[in-house]
Structure formats: structure tokens, C-alpha cells
């Protein structure tokens, strides 16, 4: 059973590549700057946010533009990726009805597309860090570890949401509200210090914050993240992925009636 699933997965890896390529091409179809937008738009936003907040948080955040940029990168990755994965059955319904492709590949492809986008916006991130003279540290070379955790987490979350959103289209609107709330409880533009100490454990329940702080430790603070946070991050990723797969597999058989 398990071996069969792995075989099936390996069989469709070329398909995953092609469909991500397709989505990528279509995303910037006919735009002049093309993929440069995935680097430009966070940069423009970063300028605005830095002007607004860098004086307010001067003492607690030394490199505000980089701080905000990293927060935005992880937040966009998770929320955009899970949102697109959530709707992937509906947006790909014409393919699902005609071809025999394991449905979950459409969820993975959307998250992978977002991963590619995030990797592109890492380029201006490191350039800005270099310009602002953020001290370089070899820990920064491990930046892909928190990104990988986030990738796994987002696939799980996307599959979980997709399993329900295919039947109940209202979830799309509900999730957009949830995303906005999620933005405020994630320290993207503010430092964690402004949260009262007795409530800080609540922030650790937020997976994005856990991944983000690992990433910031590595690339901005130049320290190795604590073992505790790595263990928590691993747990979040694995639990969410398993939950996503189980829910998806259970609901999958009835999808074609609803798309």
C-alpha cells in the first residue's frame, strides 16, 4: 500500500514539474517585467513599511527593512500557497474530470509555485541585507531549512483546507478573514517584545512565527536557532502534513461530484 503510493508519487514527478512551469508562465503572461515583479513588489512594500515603522522600533529591531522583508516572505508563502492549494480542485476541474492524475498533485503544484516565488524574492532579500551591512554568518547558509519546513507545513494546510473547501465554497471567504487576523498575530512588522510575557506562549502556537524566528535567527541575528524551536517546527510540519493527507484521502472520492 505504502510502496504503491510512493511509486505513484514518483511516477508523476515530471507532471509536477510541467504543471509548475505552466502556472509560472501563466502568472506573468504578457507582463513586461515578468518574474521581476515577485522581487519588486515586496521591495516597494518594504520601503513604505520601513519609512513608517523603523523609527518606532528603532531600539528593538536593528535592521528593520530586512526584518519586515523576512516576515512578509514567510507570511505570503504560507497564506498564498495554502489559499491557492485550497482552490486547486476548482481551478483545475477541467483536468481532474478528464485525466487520471492523483488529485493531491494539484495542491502540491500550487504550493511549489509559491515556493519558487519565495526563492525568487530571496534574491532581493539577501541584496538588501548586504547593502544594509547585516553581519554575515555561516548560519545564514542554512536558510533553506526553515523554508523547507514551511513548504511541508503549507502542503499539509493546503490539502486540509482543500478537502473541505471543495464541498463548501464559503470557506474561501472565511479563510480570507482568518488570513487577515493571522497577519496581526504574526510578528511581521512588530517585534515580539511588545507582546506581554505571559501571553508569549500563544505566539509559539503560530507555526509561521516559529519558522520565521528560525529564519531570522539564522540570517539576521547570525545565531543557531534553539533546539527547542527546531523540534517544535518539525512537529508542526509533520503533524500538519499527516492531518492534511488523511483528511484529503478521506474526502477525495467524492470530489468529482462537486467540481
Amino acid at each position, binding site marked *: 500500500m505504502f510502496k504503491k503510493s510512493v511509486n505513484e508519487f514518483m*511516477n*508523476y514527478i*515530471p*507532471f509536477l*514539474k*510541467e*504543471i509548475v512551469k*505552466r502556472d509560472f*508562465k*501563466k502568472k506573468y*503572461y504578457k507582463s513586461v517585467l515578468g518574474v521581476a515583479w515577485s522581487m519588486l513588489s515586496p521591495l516597494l512594500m518594504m520601503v513604505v513599511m520601513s519609512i513608517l515603522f523603523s523609527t518606532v522600533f528603532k531600539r528593538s529591531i536593528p535592521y528593520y527593512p530586512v526584518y519586515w522583508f523576512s516576515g512578509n516572505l514567510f507570511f505570503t508563502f504560507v497564506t498564498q500557497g495554502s489559499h491557492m492549494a485550497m482552490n486547486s480542485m476548482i481551478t483545475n476541474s*477541467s*483536468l*481532474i*474530470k*478528464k*485525466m*487520471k*492524475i492523483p488529485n493531491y498533485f494539484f495542491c502540491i503544484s500550487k504550493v511549489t509555485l509559491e515556493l519558487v516565488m519565495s526563492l525568487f524574492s530571496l534574491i532581493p532579500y539577501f541584496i538588501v541585507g548586504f547593502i544594509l551591512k547585516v553581519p554575515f554568518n555561516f548560519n545564514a547558509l542554512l536558510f533553506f531549512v526553515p523554508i523547507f519546513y514551511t513548504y511541508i507545513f503549507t502542503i499539509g494546510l493546503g490539502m486540509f483546507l482543500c478537502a473541505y473547501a471543495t*464541498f*463548501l*465554497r*464559503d470557506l474561501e471567504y472565511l479563510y480570507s478573514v482568518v488570513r487577515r487576523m493571522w497577519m496581526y498575530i504574526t510578528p511581521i512588522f512588530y517585534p515580539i517584545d511588545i507582546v506581554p510575557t505571559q501571553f508569549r506562549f500563544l505566539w509559539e502556537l503560530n507555526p509561521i512565527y516559529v519558522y520565521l524566528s528560525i529564519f531570522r535567527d539564522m540570517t539576521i541575528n547570525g545565531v543557531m536557532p534553539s533546539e527547542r524551536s527546531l523540534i517544535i517546527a518539525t512537529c508542526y510540519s509533520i503533524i500538519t502534513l499527516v492531518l492534511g493527507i488523511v483528511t484529503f484521502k478521506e474526502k477525495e*472520492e467524492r470530489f*468529482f*461530484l462537486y467540481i
Partner: protein
Amino acid sequence: MEISNATVELMQDQNVIADTSQIPDEDICIDVNDVSVMFNLSKNREDGLKEYFINMVKGKVAFNEFWALRNINFKVRRGDAVALIGRNGSGKSTLLKTIAGIIKPVRGTVTVKGTIAPLIELSGGFDRSLSARENIYLSGAMHGHTNRYMKKRFDEIIEFAELEKFVDVPVKNFSSGMVSRLGFAVATCVNADIIIADEVLAVGDAKFRKKCEERISSMLKGGTTILFVSHNVNQVKKVCRNAVWLEKGRIIDSGTAEEICDKYNDALKGTKRKLIKNS
């Protein structure tokens, strides 16, 4: 009344099995065993939370059940060409989709030995904003083929589809004939054990149709199994050896293509005559 009807059908189905029971097990490549498929024809779709809860309170979601297939039993021998015939809405396409694994049956099992190239719709799987070249790789990948494998087949596909001048043109600018030519070329150039073709020979001009028929008969000689849906009875007789006649989701009769096609034609004429009399 309904029950007695069903039992009659079941008995007929058993006759169908008896016909094919002589086939040794290793020769069977498609085994459809007592398959039933149901759709929900709900008038107001439960898309919204509000409707969902209202219906929950009203006492279970009111679904209008529609059985697209009921207790379908048949077996296909390796290398055979079987046609599914029947009027519109008789369940032919649903049966093909079930065999292709796109729809899961509510009851019963489908066992398929070998790889399937489903040709449910010729333009199926094409992205209209991509070029022919990109679409060939994409639909190849959908059938589980690597880029390298498709590269080897690329020229052959373009040549068969006669699209040498349009390789890098987006498919949305193609004529419908060009799209179907490309679809047929992509689906038949890859070596699948079973081809599922839903009305695919109804397209293109006479010259291309002849080319397609030649390709199909050469594949049959090579040992490929073909499941074929067509409304063109003459074509069915030409391509297929055996036929299955579906009506309202049930198998009415099965046997050699000649015999079944004649019966089907007679039945169609009969209903026409009835209609004329009534009017």
C-alpha cells in the same frame, strides 16, 4: 415494479458473463465487476454554508439520486477492440471514465491490467494559452512520461498532426480540427496498453480520419486494447470486433460488433417509427 425490472436486468447481465467466461484469466485486461455509479442531481447546489445548514435542519440534504450506471459486468480480452454503443445519456462516457479511474464507482470494482491512455476528450488536458510544443510536454507528463521520453516522440507527434508550421503558436489560436489532430497524435504516440477513445474519430476531414483509422488498426495489430465509443455504426463495424450496447445505464446486449450494431440500428428505427406514429 422497479425491483422486478432490476432482477430481469441482472439475469441478462449474467448471460453476458456467461458469454465471456471461457476467456482464461491471464487474457483479460479489463474486468468490470458489478459496477454502479451514482450522481447527485441536486437542483440547488450545496455550495453555501447557509443552504447547507438549512438543508441539514430540514432533515438531511435532499439529493436527487441519479444512477448513471447500474450493475455493469463485462470483460475485455487483451488486444480486443470493443465498442460501446447507445443513445445519448446512456452512460457510455461515464463507463469510460470509470474504467480510466477518473470516477470511482459507488459499488463494484474495476480491474485494469496495463497502462491506459484516456482520450475522453481530444482537447482534454490542453492549456489553451500554451503553445503546441509546451502542451505536448504537459500532456505527456499527465500520462506519466518524462520530458526525455517526450522529446524522442516530439517530431513524430508534430508530423502526424501536420502542425509543423504551428509548433510555437498558442493552442487557443488553433482551429478545432488542429486541436483534435494534436490531441489524437499525443494520445496515440505513447505506448499504452489500453486506449480509451470517446468519439475521437468524429473529427477532422476525411483524409485525417482515414489516417486515424489506420493508426488505430496498426495499434490493434500491435496488441493494444481499444475501448471505443462512437455514434457512427459503420465505423464501429470497421474498427471493432465486439460491441456492448448500453441503455439507461444498463447493458442491454453484447456480442460481435456486426450483430449488436444491426440490433441497435433496428431499435433506433423502431423508436423513430413510434415517434412518427405518435405525432
